[in-house]
């Protein structure tokens, strides 16, 4: 039992102190006989506060500490390290959450929040009294990362990890890599186009001995945990064994009788069942879309590299960590949203960008040359009625950049119906250039959205201009472009397989946006790029580099420390009945014989510390380290004391 405890109550600036009387909390526990010292601190996590705690532990010879501050999910390790630097075992530290479960949850009742904080701190003290000196478990970690999604985020993370000495299995669901960026033309700031960025990354990936690229591959099952994830992959064949001779491949495409919407170009055109999205696409080998292929066999007559009998393969891999970079889907407006799909001159930004890429000299849409364009911003973002309350961040820049391109390429003038332009940072240069080009910006009230109609063959945008005395304008245009933002992937089945939390915006959720921005609550599962939230390429790559570094630091040592949360059997109380073994999902409990008595025994290597064996024991002979009867019961008592 610990008898010389230091207790620190954090103000967290105003986050806690605005709603909880921090000094009153300290006074309430200061006289506890086991509390040797109690202090309040402005920011417990600051370097100076940490140093003070370390000094206290050493000088006052404290045997345990409690910090009442934010959620343990943020700073448990921070203060455990403080304990270690002070010379304590890190498990002689307890963090009490008086912010998320105190001041913030009860900011409406400050006095009651203070009372609750007092009880929570008392419970923390009760728990730390019972704390033991423990040694973390060490398990072998495979120095290999599975990166799911080979868009630019996944590709860049793969290169970074491989350069740091970590093996990478890069898994792409599509037959071609590059993700959304390969659909984009010229990019700001570099002026390179998406294909060039993808090409550069692909060439590095494919030449790197530490990276294995899987295309047409989906993750279908997962078992294991951090350091040792077992993943089952389903590999769909591309039915083309090697690159066809150009002539033969062209003939195979020409002869293919199938014609389906080309998803790569957002249904602006058709493609065949045997296809490449664009000529220099990676890998260079074409693929056959077997969902639409009729197996007529005509392509076989002109190309000997096609094998329609290739079969789906199932492959199992073992990795130490998983990095999700599954990207986003463009928002698809609902039918009639800004007349989408009801007026034929209304398309999305993503369609428009492909149209520009496919139109070298003149911009032609539905057989008509386009000379005037109206962009309508924030379609599917910052929704007042819909669920997408967030700003998609990249769309203002992308729309204005595209407007500049079409001005240069076709001398087209554009109108921008917006809700306030967010071309932050260097991207503001684009706004300036577009304005100088003569583009017209009209700001509208989100509660009074522009209305698109047709007067004969002429498309009209009716909009009330907020900045010119709310004048109602009728703007004739040839084409309306809905500036659609980012939404999470429609098929997010991977979240179910990996149990990754989804946020309110339906994107993957990090532990903390500032302090742990690429980690999820699932140990060893990291997130990068636009699968986490809308991001532009620069932001996506920054997050993928952060996730790569985090994954490497986690597993590259070859072993991982885990919480020593193990079941322990109190032999004297155990009369082997087998119920605990039946309850254990990991086969960690075995029957053994000690001095002729049959009892349960825990195989520590298999025990995952879930505690499922605890409640089924009829003689209460099992404890879970860190959650023993003494610890839990003392907390139950202290919370209501």
């Amino acid at each position, binding site marked *: 039992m610990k008898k010389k405890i230091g207790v620190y109550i954090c103000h967290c600036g105003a986050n806690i102190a605005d709603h909880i009387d921090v000094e009153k909390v300290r006074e309430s526990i200061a006289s506890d006989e086991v509390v040797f010292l109690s202090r309040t601190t402005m920011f417990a996590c600051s370097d100076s506060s940490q140093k003070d705690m370390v000094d206290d532990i050493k000088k006052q010879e404290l045997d345990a500490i409690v910090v009442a501050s934010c959620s343990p*999910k943020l700073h448990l390790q921070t203060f455990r390290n403080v304990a270690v630097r002070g010379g304590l075992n890190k498990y002689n530290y307890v963090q009490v959450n008086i912010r*998320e479960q105190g001041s913030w949850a009860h900011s409406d009742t400050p006095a009651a929040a203070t009372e609750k904080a007092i009880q929570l701190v008392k419970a923390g003290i009760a728990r730390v009294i019972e704390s033991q000196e423990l040694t973390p478990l060490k398990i072998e970690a495979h120095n290999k990362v599975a990166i799911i999604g080979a868009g630019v985020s996944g590709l860049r993370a793969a290169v970074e990890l491989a350069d740091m000495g970590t093996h990478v299995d890069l898994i792409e669901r599509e037959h071609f890599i590059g993700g959304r960026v390969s659909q984009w033309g010229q990019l700001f700031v570099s002026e390179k186009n998406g294909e060039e960025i993808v090409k550069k990354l692909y060439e590095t990936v494919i030449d790197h001995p530490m990276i294995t690229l899987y295309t047409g591959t989906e993750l279908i099952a997962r078992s294991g945990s951090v350091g040792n994830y077992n993943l089952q992959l389903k590999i769909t064949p591309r039915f083309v064994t090697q690159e066809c001779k150009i002539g033969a491949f062209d003939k195979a495409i020409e002869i293919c009788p199938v014609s389906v919407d080309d998803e790569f170009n957002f249904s602006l055109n058709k493609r065949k069942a045997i296809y490449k999205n664009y000529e220099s696409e990676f890998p260079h080998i074409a693929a056959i879309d077997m969902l639409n292929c009729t197996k007529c066999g005509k392509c076989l007559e002109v190309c000997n590299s096609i094998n329609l009998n290739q079969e789906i393969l199932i492959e199992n891999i073992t990795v130490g960590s998983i990095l999700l970079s599954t990207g986003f889907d463009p928002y698809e407006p609902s039918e009639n949203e800004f007349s989408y799909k009801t007026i034929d001159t209304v398309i999305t930004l993503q369609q428009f960008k492909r149209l520009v890429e496919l139109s070298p000299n003149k911009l032609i849409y539905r057989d008509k040359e386009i000379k005037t364009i109206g962009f309508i911003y924030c379609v599917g973002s910052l929704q007042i009625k819909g669920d997408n309350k967030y700003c998609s961040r990249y769309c203002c820049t992308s729309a204005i950049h595209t407007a500049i391109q079409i001005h240069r390429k076709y001398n087209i003038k554009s109108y921008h119906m917006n809700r306030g332009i967010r071309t932050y940072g260097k991207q503001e240069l684009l706004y300036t250039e577009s304005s100088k080009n003569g583009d017209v910006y009209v700001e509208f009230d989100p509660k009074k959205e522009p209305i698109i109609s047709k007067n004969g063959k002429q498309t009209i945008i009716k909009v009330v201009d907020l900045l010119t005395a709310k004048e109602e304008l009728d703007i004739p245009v040839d084409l309306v472009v809905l500036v659609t933002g980012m939404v999470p992937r429609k098929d997010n089945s991977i979240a179910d397989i990996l149990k990754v939390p989804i946020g309110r915006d339906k994107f993957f959720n990090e532990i903390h946006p500032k302090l742990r921005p690429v980690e999820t609550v699932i140990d060893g599962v990291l997130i990068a790029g636009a699968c986490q939230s809308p991001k532009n390429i620069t932001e996506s790559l920054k997050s993928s580099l952060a996730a790569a570094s985090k994954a490497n630091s986690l597993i590259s040592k070859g072993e991982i420390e885990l919480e020593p949360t193990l079941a322990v059997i109190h032999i004297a109380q155990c009369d082997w009945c087998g119920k605990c073994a039946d309850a254990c*999902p990991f086969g960690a409990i075995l029957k053994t014989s000690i001095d002729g008595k049959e009892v349960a025994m825990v195989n520590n290597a298999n025990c995952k510390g879930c505690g*499922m064996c605890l409640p089924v024991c009829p003689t209460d002979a099992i404890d879970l380290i860190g959650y023993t009867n003494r610890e839990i019961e003392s907390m*139950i008592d202290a919370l209501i004391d």
Partner: protein
Amino acid sequence: MSETTKNTAIKVLVFSTEKISDPAIDLAGLLKLHYPPTVYVIPLPCSSAVKPKWILRAFEKGYDGVFIAADGTDCSFSESCVEKTSDIIAQTHILMKEKGISPAKLKMAAICSVCAEPFVKHMNNFVEELTRNKIN
């Protein structure tokens, strides 16, 4: 809270789980979603680890209700978690009846890692129900 209020307020003990429901309870705070301040949370690795004796002890000590914020199907340990947690509840209900404690004082619901609003709703409803029963 006045001393009088403190002594009469409905007290609820919540067993949450560190990886699934506790993040949701934290999220509720982050979103400033309010629930009664006499709701106290003890996190465990898994909701199937709650011992019936802990629940009974809570009632003996004076808690008005116990709520298990269960992993549900999100449990990363085992798919059997839902069934096992339900068994704990059923077993504890029997023990509660034996001791003359209303089974209505023990509730369970699956709370996923982003179920902040459902958690708050459960707490508000549970406390309201316990208050009503206490008055009656």
